[in-house]
């Protein structure tokens, strides 16, 4: 196996040095930026402003700084995974803030609750992407130049290249060169004849792939950013039998990017026909959800034809570019409230919020208007509601659900009257009862009136104030309706990135030269040599194959005299060593192993 120091890396470092190992032969084998040597004065910016700017730009677009920025990016992402994030779970952030009163101000100052939109995190990735653009533009220009130009002519001493072979043949040199050129072109090398040799190169896709990959990263970032600016996202809770139509007023909550235009909501509507949830019935995973599906009837446009659809956890409904996701579900007990005269004041399914995995739920039932107390005075009613789909049975401690399915539903209510406070102008949580302006209904013992109800049972309010009946239970599902332009671009970018990366990492860029000259004795001497961006084991193999193919038309002539190889080597390598030293930063042998992609 060939031990290797990447010739071209070194060549890059030594680019401007005279006497570099392969000189012009290895020139432009890559478009990677040259590294500034720390000790060559590049680190000392000129005093003028332009000098500073130029220095800064050169630093920013160097590989070294790109590397450091990449490192900082991964380091900077860490706190966001360990500290609760507002964008991920606001509730957790609040809980954290209550628990850690000393840490909170520090974290807030450092924007640690919003790492991924923080100034410092943004600074890292913006710098990285500026650096990336500053890197891609000149590299693309260089690459186009390389595609336009032809591979450089053969270096004087082919023996110095990483893979080399030679033989003598009776065939004429012109004939050998012509055959070699045909042979190389047949293997999709780009080649031409320069002087007494053929120069050929292959593997440009490596560079192209690398550029495509880096450009694709920018495309993905831009797609992602514009998606954030133009997106809209809202939530809607729908009880079985109810519907939703996609207008702003129908949303429970709605967020949009700063450039979003509300006219762009896609017109469609749907009705939740049925929600189906099933759960593991037995075993250690009892209660684990197995299926969730929302069966809907939807219509595209204002008067589109109605169609049936099923929305599952992994399968959003896509209507006109908008996606409807199933996010959560729960129960909505149907209750009827009657006044003292037995007149039905309200009958509705009231969605309650699950508070644990077995869907123990809580919420509030509010009767805003239509209710008059026994004196005929208008007032409002409120009930705190607690619901379990599967009741453990009386005397089994707290009322918590034992199973998420609707096996033994019980609704516990406590009753209040007075002002619900909905007119106060403050936004109100529909799942909570604000009892500050309400009076408790009392039971016989003067305690707060409360009762557990099974379906069909009712709670009578004292003194002929009416009643509330638990009729049955519906299920509700909540949906997220989101529209995010730019997804197509992001996906395209992602695919291009992978393809480019594969090209960049798996393709070898290499050059092959074939020199054929007539020797003093009239016999043609053929020399072949190969140079890659790195010394890969494939290069000598390929050269072997090429020479074997060439030998069929330029067969080996017997009795070759000794090549001046031995004499050449010592001074050759002395020369290389000298350049190495001249590189002023001694390359530690172990630091310069070479590899496939390294250039």
């Amino acid at each position, binding site marked *: 196996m060939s031990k290797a*120091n990447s010739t071209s890396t070194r060549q890059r470092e030594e680019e401007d040095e005279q006497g570099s190992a392969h000189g012009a032969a290895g020139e432009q084998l890559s478009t990677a930026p040259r590294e500034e040597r720390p000790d060559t004065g590049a680190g000392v910016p000129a005093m003028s402003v332009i000098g500073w700017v130029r220095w800064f730009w050169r630093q920013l677009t160097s590989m070294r700084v790109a590397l450091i920025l990449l490192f900082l990016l991964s380091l900077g992402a860490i706190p966001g995974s360990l500290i609760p994030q507002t964008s991920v779970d606001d509730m957790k952030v609040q809980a954290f803030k209550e628990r850690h009163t000393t840490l909170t101000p520090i974290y807030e100052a450092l924007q640690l609750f919003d790492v991924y939109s923080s100034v410092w995190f943004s600074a890292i990735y913006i710098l990285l992407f500026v650096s990336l653009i500053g890197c891609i533009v000149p590299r693309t220009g260089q690459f186009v130049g390389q595609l336009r130009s032809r591979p450089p002519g053969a270096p004087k001493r082919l023996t110095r290249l990483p893979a080399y072979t030679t033989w003598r043949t009776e065939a004429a040199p012109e004939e050998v060169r012509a055959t070699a050129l045909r042979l190389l072109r047949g293997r999709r090398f780009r080649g031409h004849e320069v002087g007494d040799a053929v120069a050929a190169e292959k593997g440009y896709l490596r560079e192209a792939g690398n550029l495509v990959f880096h450009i694709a990263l920018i495309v993905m970032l831009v797609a992602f950013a514009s998606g954030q600016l133009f997106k809209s996202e809202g939530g809607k809770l729908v009880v079985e039998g109810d519907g939703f139509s996609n207008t702003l007023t129908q949303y429970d909550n709605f967020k949009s990017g700063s450039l979003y235009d509300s006219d762009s909501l896609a017109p469609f509507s749907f009705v939740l026909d049925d929600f189906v949830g099933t759960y593991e019935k037995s075993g250690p995973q009892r209660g684990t959800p*197995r299926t969730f599906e929302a069966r809907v009837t939807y219509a595209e446009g204002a008067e589109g034809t109605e169609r049936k659809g099923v929305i599952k956890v*992994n399968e*959003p409904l896509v209507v006109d570019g908008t996606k409807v996701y199933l996010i959560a579900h729960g129960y909505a007990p149907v209750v009827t409230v009657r006044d003292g005269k037995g007149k039905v004041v309200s009958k509705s399914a009231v969605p309650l919020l699950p508070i644990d995995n077995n869907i123990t739920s809580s919420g509030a039932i509010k009767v805003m208007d239509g209710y008059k107390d026994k004196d005929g005075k208008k007032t409002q009613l409120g009930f705190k509601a607690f619901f379990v789909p599967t009741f453990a049975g009386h005397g089994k401690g707290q009322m918590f659900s034992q199973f998420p399915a609707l096996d033994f539903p019980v609704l516990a209510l406590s009753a209040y009257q007075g002002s619900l406070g909905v007119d106060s102008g403050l936004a109100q949580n529909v799942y909570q009862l604000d009892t500050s302006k309400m009076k408790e209904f009392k039971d016989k013992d003067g305690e707060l009136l409360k009762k557990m109800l099974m379906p069909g049972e009712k709670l009578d309010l004292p003194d002929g104030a009416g009643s509330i009946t638990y009729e049955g239970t519906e299920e509700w599902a909540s949906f997220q309706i989101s529209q995010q332009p730019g997804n197509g671009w992001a996906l395209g970018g992602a695919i291009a990135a*992978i393809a480019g990366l594969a090209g960049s990492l798996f393709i070898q860029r290499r050059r092959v030269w074939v020199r054929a000259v007539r020797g003093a004795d009239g016999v043609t001497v053929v020399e072949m040599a190969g140079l890659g961006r790195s010394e890969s084991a494939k290069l000598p193999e390929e050269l072997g194959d090429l020479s*074997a193919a060439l030998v069929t038309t330029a067969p080996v002539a017997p009795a070759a005299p000794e090549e001046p190889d031995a004499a050449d*080597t010592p001074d050759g390598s002395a020369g290389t060593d000298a350049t190495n030293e001249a590189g002023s930063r001694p390359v530690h042998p*172990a630091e310069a192993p070479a590899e496939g992609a390294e250039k």
Partner: protein
Amino acid sequence: MNLAAATNESLAEASNVLIYSSMAVYTLAFFAHIAEWVFGSRSKVGRTAAALSTSPAKASAAPAVKAQAGGTAVLERPEVITRSAAGTRDVPDGPGAAGGTFKGDLYGRIAVSLTVVAFLVEAGGVITRALSVQRAPWANMYEFSITFSTVAVGSYLVLLALKKNVRWIGLPLVTTVLLDLGIAVTTLYTDSDQLVPALHSYWLWIHVSTAILCGAVFYLGAVGTILYLFRDSYENKLASGGTPGKFASSVMERLPSASSLDKFAYRINAAVFPLWTFTIIAGAIWAGDAWGRYWGWDPKEVWSFITWVAYAAYLHARATAGWKGRKAAYLALLAFACWLFNYYGVNIFVSGLHSYAGV
């Protein structure tokens, strides 16, 4: 209990038996590898020292390692001469754990054969587990772990079958596989069961299988990197005239040269990096379907991203003067540590949307 459930239960039991059996066979392979190293230590190799004892200038002057590029029977084929660039240590690879001794080699072959058997048994365990739940066998940490070690061993055997010089991985690999399976059957064990709805998706097959494959192969790369660091220190010590301890010499001398190990680690990491990129993108697409957003900085997503950026930094380091070699190797290890944390740490210590994975 119905009939189907009963067959599933007995399949799940069969799977457990197979996993335990594979552990037994891996243990035998482990001892065979130990024997290989022990008998191998009786050989006197000392190639590295010999190669390094020539003066550095002469070493790089040493012309052209001759390499025969195969031969055609009919026509004489010109010989291809390869030459290393200046500045590289011309150190030959060690002879492997067996050290060229007959007994060591015999035990090495036994170890590899046992590893093949254990691999087949373990793969059987994974497959019966999959059949027992009738889905992809990677919905919880136990299943990840058994699949992970199966894939790691499988990749090693594929490299062996391709005649790559990788037998030196045998002992560290079998050791970690035993560790991995030990943790899996004791602390991570979960009864075979169905999936929660969020995992019902063909993306489970795509995303998780590639994630496991990437991890297993990154692991092989990390082993190469660690051994590179040891071997490199050893070569440095020799080159600067030091005399390493007897044990260190005996072990290091039999490993491939530092530059071969480094090259191996690089090739492995570079080959998997595009697949890891794909894994993350596939995960994002799945998250888009399952949770209504492609990227939400969930801890698992964050750590996949960190791992990805860390490997990208490693690849950049390899292309940046002054960062090659040891520094790049440390970055590679850091990147693998990120992967490991993502795999174990995030599931155990951090709660997030991915935490249904059942520890």
